[in-house]
């Protein structure tokens, strides 16, 4: 019997183990958050798609926070937003880059850290020849993509391709016109349509005149849009005939994919065009990571997505349908952004022309 008992005692030891396991089970291990690199990116729709961001995050073991903007005004507001952590890199058109450089918001870029710039077309490597990208011999922006901002029209409703932006005011299309909700471009393209030689340098009289013109445009509109997807939805649902294509060819691509039979024209009076560039902010905390992002954007696999997904041109390959006759007016810094925005907010909100 004592033997049997002794066995029983030994057999009881696993039971003690079980108790121990119970006790251990009650204690849960708290995960420890590791210090992680974070890159804050300010970009436009289609520039930093989720898969592109994921690849970058995996390659550089960093987290990327992308904030989308839909207008230059929103971009400026984001850069000046209080209470949010500062951005490290941003995409803006050359004129805006100049503005940010003047405002001392950007850090100069070291081209040696951006080897992919060597892959760019020669005319985009000649940075000093592009207005706004250099200052005091230092480079502040790297060209990424560009587009003209022409007219998009429904070929079913408009048989003959329109030749001027003034078609937007055509009462025939009342309630079937879309405009982009942005102060600077609306004033600029209207100035261009009115035949002003300096669309970015408007005097007070011209400004007032254009404001009235823009109210007239508003009265002819269905509505304003900000995002390309939004424009596409309005275009399809409300049988829009004509619109100012702020996103240019990117929007044409989107509309065609949505089943619209659209044409894209560059008006005779000339077309505004933007050249979006990547820049690094002065407040960038991890500059090597910010530069890595910019260089990554110029990789053929990433830049190649622009024509493929967005219908936009990139800076590595020359577009096939290059219209040499078109009068391209690269967006430049405007005389008084604040004034334009002030007027524009009132115009969009519905203030009547008598009040201008």
């Amino acid at each position, binding site marked *: *019997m*004592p033997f049997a*008992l*002794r066995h*029983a*005692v030994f057999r*009881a030891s696993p*039971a*003690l183990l*079980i*108790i121990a396991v*119970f006790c251990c089970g009650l204690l849960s291990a708290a995960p420890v958050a590791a210090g992680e690199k974070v890159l804050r990116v*300010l970009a436009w729709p289609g520039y930093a798609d989720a898969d592109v961001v994921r690849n970058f995050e995996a390659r550089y073991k960093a987290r990327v*926070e*992308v*904030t*989308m*903007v*839909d207008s230059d005004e*929103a971009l400026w507001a*984001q850069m000046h937003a209080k*209470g*949010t952590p500062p951005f490290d890199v941003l995409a803006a058109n050359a004129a805006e880059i100049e503005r940010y450089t003047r405002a001392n918001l950007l850090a100069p870029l070291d081209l040696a850290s951006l080897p992919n710039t060597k892959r760019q077309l020669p005319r985009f490597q000649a940075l000093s020849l592009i207005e706004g990208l250099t200052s005091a011999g230092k480079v502040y922006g790297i060209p990424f993509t560009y587009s003209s901002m022409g007219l998009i029209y429904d070929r079913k409703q408009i048989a003959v391709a329109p030749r001027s932006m003034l078609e937007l005011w055509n009462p025939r299309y009342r*309630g079937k016109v879309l405009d982009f909700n942005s102060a600077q471009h609306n004033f600029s393209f209207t100035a261009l349509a009115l035949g002003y030689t300096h669309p970015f340098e408007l005097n007070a009289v011209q400004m007032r005149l254009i404001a009235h013109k823009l109210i007239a445009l*508003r*009265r002819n*509109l*269905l*509505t*304003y849009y900000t995002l390309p997807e939004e424009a596409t939805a309005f275009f399809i649902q*409300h049988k829009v005939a004509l619109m100012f294509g702020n996103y240019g060819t990117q929007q044409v691509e989107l509309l065609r994919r949505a089943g619209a039979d659209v044409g894209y024209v560059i008006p005779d009076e000339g077309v505004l065009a933007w050249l979006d560039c990547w820049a690094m902010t002065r407040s960038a905390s991890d500059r090597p990571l910010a530069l890595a992002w910019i260089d990554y954007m110029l990789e053929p696999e990433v830049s190649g997505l622009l024509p493929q997904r967005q219908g936009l041109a990139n800076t590595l390959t020359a577009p096939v349908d290059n219209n040499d006759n078109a009068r391209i007016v690269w967006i430049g810094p405007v005389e008084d952004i604040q004034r334009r925005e002030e007027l524009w*907010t*009132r115009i*969009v*909100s*519905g*203030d*009547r022309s*008598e*009040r201008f």
Partner: protein
Amino acid sequence: MIRPGLTFKLSVLLACIGVLASGATGYYAYRANRAMLVNEAGRSLLTSTELLGQRFSVAIDDVGADALVLAGMPSSGEVAQTDDGLGENAARERLAQVYSSFMVHHPDYLQIRLITRQHYGLELIRFDRDADGLVRVEGNRLQEKGQFAYIFDTLAFSPGRLYASPISVNHEYDAHAAEGKPTLRLGTPVANAKGAVVGVVVIDVDLAGMLKRLQSDLPSDYQVYLANEWGDFLVHPDGSKTFGFDKGRRVLMQDSFAVTKPLFEQSQSEVLVNGLTYPRQAAEQVLAFVRRPFGASEGNRFIVLGLAKPLEDVLSDANLLGNRIIRMVLVFSALAVLLAILFARALTKPLHILAYAATHLFAEHAMETLPLKRTDEIGVLARCFDRLRREIKSQMDVLHNKQTELVHLATHDGLTGLPNRMLFMQKLENAIEEATRRQEGLAVLFVDLDRFKQINDQFGHSVGDKVLVVVARRLKQVLCTADVVARLGGDEFIVLIEGPRAVEAAPAIASRIMNTLNEELLMDGQNMAVGASIGISQFPDDSGTAEELLLNADAAMYAAKSGGRCAYLRYHDLLEARRLEQLEQARAQASEGATQGHEAEPMA
């Protein structure tokens, strides 16, 4: 002693089982209780969420009803068709009074407007709200709103139907308090007398304010989430996550809470998840989400409402119970330890008794406690053991008796039962030692029967033996119990007399012996007297050793016997007589012939 280890081990084993059982029971009770509490909290949370959603729908419906009332005012159609917002218009002013009273009674309304289809969607009546109260916007400050979806979409509706806008942030310029506020717009067409749509009534609702009012009676630890039909957060405990679409970085509910995906895919209408069962999907929270359509059926608009309650709050009761369970488990464990000790002792006690009995095999008191009456295995064991012990004991007793008998036979005379020579010599030696120590004397009486040989020859050996037995009995009778009488063999007996006056008493005793042996005895009808000659030797005078004392007594007896029958002689007297005799002989030799035939014989 019996191993105390067995009781200890058994106690530990039983205590472990008891502690484990009570611990496991407590633990599972605790877990079950937690799960129950969380489920209960989840159900009540879901009910609250549904209720909140219902209230929200009702509130929106109320707004819609207000819009319909305003649009249905008889003068609305007329004003919308003919007014241009400028100049006097009595009908418009009457309507405006109604609008203003609606504004007064509904603090959630940011704006109420009557907007005409004409003049590019010009506002005709507009009430705003600012910090000071109502603001009537009039004259050329009225704006053209035809470019907004809530106007052109509502104008496309037939009278009596309601338009609900997506919930967005109001960025319209000069909108007073409405500017920058999350806004829901409800619109309905205004028809003229012919039924044609000539304008719209639009009510802007302060969504945050309305929700705050709706959730005012929710417990303070509830957190409220609200998302639009695409999942953008409109209400979130962390304000920076709301209206992400307006800030360029969308924060979607289905990304933050993966469980809400089916709500946006419209495959489910409510979701309940708790952080206890699904810690990855609801970290430290109990969450309930409900999809709630609103604004009639137009545009398939819906919101997703969510309520969250910290798991900690839900489980606080469970923790209370947990503490109680821990206390209970401790008490029961202590009880289990106690019971284990008692039980182990009860179980091992008979074993201890058996073991004690085994180690004290022939102690009677050890047997008294044997559990012989038990009916279990221990009883069987005890009974077997007892039987075994009895058998051993009886055999041992037999052996012991035989041994005693053998010892008796070896030291006693078989016929008379008196000690034999060997035993006598031992006793004599012991007596000498004792006497030496006490400085006392002792006497040895050598008794030889005088006529035994004749009796033997005349009546046979059997009579002789009987005579010897009688002689032995008589010897014992005349002697004190302290004196020792032994049979040396044949008709020789020997007596040892101890005590302080042994030497002085010896002649008297010898004389008593002679008297008793000279008495006639009747044997088989024959009278006979044996008679005896006795030699006495004394310690320490005659010798210091047992052997010599015996020899000397023998010699004295022999001298007595040869001197004549029925006499006793002391060895001391014998020596004296011999010395005298030798003196006599020497004198006789010296005067030989002078005197002859002189006789001298010792006499008792």
